[in-house]
């Protein structure tokens, strides 16, 4: 066990394959449980406001925890036991899923006064360990979440290989993440359909997710200290990878050059960092951030829209699926779209005008909430819309808020300052809660607002690109 296997032997190391399969599957099941959570909240007697508040709570905890752990990353002790941290985060996530599964009756068992919603909140807080510290936190979809700090346990390489690795790595992370999501989506659809309802179906998804996560934790643990590096390599993450490729490099620059910012209040730091950005860059960032807010404020309620409000079922031959089960198939379509988008991304970026691709892509993403409201009640058409939503992976590398390297970004400029990145993450946090409030007023109203906010963002972006101006 002390010998260092070659890279080729490394790739076929069966333990690592088991790790990857288990972690990618639990990634999918956790995401599916999160997608079904609002419907479960409704099933146990609450409404969209509570669902939105829970999602916001999760995003808020993730932002706070990722800030905290990125501070810790700077310390010399942080990489002492990355494998242990990975295993621990997976185990905590498994406990979180169990809290979700048992939420309705944990009080009765333990004599606690938390109520079902309280246990759902506990579960959502625990699950942030997966999103902030988990070994596969960089798998797609990362844009529906607050950002996690990039893993920094990997030695830097020369810049060219970093960039090549970043592109390959992003595609791998999207495809692996989408495959995990697709498998989980099929399972969730089958679970909800065979259990005859979302209450039992959600519990099955959560319990299975906990089991697979436990398997992943044991596999990670049995691979020992090799694992963090092993999984990182398979996921193409070994090269400064995260969804904000190179961000840690930026952070390193910032900590050396922008030290005076420490003296200011957080708000002051954001505004001074933003004011130091060139106008176009600032507009682009604001525009993209608005689209993010719109997406974060609407995606938790997609399930409520298609299941509760529109009740889109499906019957093929003798088999008829309830809307709650069909939603799993919609997520499957979204995952398929994500794969297509990730594969098409390099071609789009190299053949077409990046600015046009980005603007059109964000416009499509912004229009989709309205599209889902207005589309005919046909599962096939709705599935196509979900697939389009998944295709947003094609523009993901171009988005101004992800801190992409200057050569790829449509709006050239310096690396996005840390304070601005944090501000974008913080701005996304209340979006689900506000979305829930609006949804409680009227679903069409909520989705119209989401589309409007998104289109405002696209307009800001257009300003940055200065269309029609010299």
């Amino acid at each position, binding site marked *: 066990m002390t010998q260092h296997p070659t890279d080729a032997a490394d790739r076929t*190391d*069966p*333990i690592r394959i*088991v790790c990857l399969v*288990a972690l990618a599957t639990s990634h999918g099941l956790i995401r599916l449980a999160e997608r079904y959570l609002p419907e479960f909240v409704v099933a146990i007697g609450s409404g969209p406001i509570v669902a939105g508040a829970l999602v916001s709570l999760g995003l808020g905890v993730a932002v706070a925890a990722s800030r905290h752990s990125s501070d810790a990353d700077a310390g010399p002790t942080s990489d002492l036991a990355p494998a242990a941290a990975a295993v621990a985060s997976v185990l905590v996530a*498994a406990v979180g899923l*169990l809290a979700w*599964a*048992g939420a*309705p*009756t*944990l009080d*009765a*068992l333990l004599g606690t006064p938390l109520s079902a919603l309280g246990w759902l909140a506990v579960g959502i807080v625990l699950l942030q360990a997966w999103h902030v510290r988990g070994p596969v936190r960089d798998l797609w979809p990362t844009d529906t979440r607050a950002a996690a700090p990039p893993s920094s346990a990997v030695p830097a390489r020369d810049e060219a290989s970093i960039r090549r690795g970043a592109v390959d790595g992003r595609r791998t992370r999207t495809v692996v993440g989408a495959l995990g999501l697709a498998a989980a989506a099929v399972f969730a659809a089958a679970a909800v359909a*065979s*259990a*005859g309802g979302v*209450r*039992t179906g959600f*519990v*099955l998804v959560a*319990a*299975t997710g*906990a*089991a*697979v996560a*436990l*398997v992943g934790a*044991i*596999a990670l*643990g*049995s*691979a020992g200290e090799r694992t963090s590096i092993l999984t990182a390599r398979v996921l193409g993450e070994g090269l400064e990878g995260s969804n904000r490729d190179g961000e840690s490099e930026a952070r390193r620059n910032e900590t050396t050059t922008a030290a005076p910012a420490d003296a200011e209040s957080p708000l002051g730091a954001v505004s001074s960092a933003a004011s130091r950005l060139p106008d176009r860059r600032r507009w682009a960032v604001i525009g993209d951030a608005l689209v993010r807010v719109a997406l974060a404020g609407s995606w938790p309620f997609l399930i409520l829209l298609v299941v509760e409000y529109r009740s889109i079922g499906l019957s093929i031959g003798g088999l008829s699926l309830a809307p709650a089960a069909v939603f799993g198939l919609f997520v499957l379509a979204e995952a398929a779209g994500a794969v297509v988008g990730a594969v098409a991304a390099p071609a789009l970026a190299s053949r077409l005008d990046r600015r046009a691709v980005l603007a059109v892509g964000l416009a499509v993403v912004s229009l989709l909430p309205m599209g889902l409201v207005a589309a005919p009640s046909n599962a096939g058409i709705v599935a196509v819309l979900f697939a389009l939503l998944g295709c947003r992976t094609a523009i993901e590398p171009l988005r101004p808020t992800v801190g992409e390297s200057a050569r790829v970004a449509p709006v050239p400029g310096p690396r996005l300052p840390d304070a601005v990145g944090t501000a974008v993450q913080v701005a996304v946090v209340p979006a689900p809660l506000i979305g829930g409030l609006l949804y409680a007023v009227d679903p069409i109203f909520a989705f119209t607002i989401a589309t409007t906010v998104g289109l405002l963002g696209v307009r800001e972006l257009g300003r940055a690109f200065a269309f029609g101006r010299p």
Partner: protein
Amino acid sequence: MTRSIGRSNVDHRRLARWHLALALVMGLWGGLDALFLRTALVTPTLGRLTAETYNAFFTTHGLTMLFLFALPAIWGVSYVAVPPLIEADDVAAPTLGAVAFWLQVPAALSIRAGTIGGILGVAGLEPVASGWTLYPPLSVLSANPAVDALLAGLALVAVGTTLTAWTLLRTILREREVRWLEVDTFTWTVLTAAAMSLLAFPVLAATVALVLADRTLATGFLLGGGGPQVWQHLFWFFAHPLVYIVVLPPMGIVSHVLPRFAGRKLFGHRSSVYSTLAIGVVSFTVWAHHMFVTGMSLPVRTVFMLTTLAVALPSSAKLCTWLVTLWGGSIRYTAPMVASLAAVGFFVVGGVTGVFLAVVPINVRYTGTYYVVAHFHLLLAGFVALALVAGVYYWFPLLTDRRLEPGLARLHVWLTVVGVAVTFGALLLVGLAQLPRRVATYPAAYAPLHQLATVGAYVIAAAQAVFLANLARSLWLGDPAPNDPWALESGPSHTREWK
């Protein structure tokens, strides 16, 4: 010598492979039953399942695991290891052994006829739902023809097991080339289990014949006033020794594997052999501890309580030999060793819970609850299955001339250990709350514990998937095993089977 072809073209290794292949297939099937059970128990209500379906699943799970997984697996491991351990050329009567094995295939199909019929949609045939103990009047009065198929299958199992036991017994008695004093502890457990089978399985055949007679000839042996109790006495006179037939060879495996990876000789070889023989004898005198709530008089119950507690003594002696062997050893954490160590741990928990269950007043309170489920699964899944895993891993090179990937093997063991601990730890808590077993519904407050148990069961299932992958990989790649696969040549404990 051991790898040469025997007198017929059926040698001990082929017999072992057949038995273990059957055990693998049926173990997966029985495991699938358990997964359905656990999935149904995720919610406190029945949902779309009927109570009858639930009952069928726990019935077939028990029957399959005991008769079609544990027994063939034990005979398989015995066939592969015993002849080389006693330096025999081969088994005494390979053809008889082969006949005994091939009886198990129609037996398996017959026992699972209800499930097969249900899946294929054969009219009238549905899975038996009376529990693996087949208590009358339920078993006698059921109109389901699958009950008859099941009884016929059990009769075949009884005949086949008797023949297998006879083959192994004769092998040890006649073909042995080492002196009795040099016979190893594993062979002693196989010898004892085989002798017990020769006594116990004919009783099973007779009891099964009684139910069949009642069902087809309306003889009414088991329906009158004391009939159901007659059945229970006969059944448990067979079934408690069955438990020890299933437990003793795994004890022998643990005694064999532990010292080899602790760099020691087994401490107390003699005490180990004597405790094996003692368990073999005493286990025929304890059957009525399964009947403490059937209205037996207090003195009778007290006697059976005392004999049951007496079994704890030789069992504790075994535990002592293991622990002292480990003490101060330099332990190598190979897959068979990890499995053996975990088996010892589960043996302690399963044993201690069993001692409490032997005490009449405690038994009366807990016999109908999940406490019993947790107790015997800690012993059967925790101890027996893990010890069998240890044996299969340890002797796999002898069985196939191939090696398994050691990392995957360890992962399989660890996943199984964690899964068993989570599942039956959770069920032990459910049992301490006195939730009744064999019921598909339960108070909603216990849903989180049942969900935890289900999560554990899924982990066990994933573990077996890892095992299958490793097995397929080994058979596909055909990695040849080295001559001394566990590097024991220079160790202090003898390695007769690897010479």
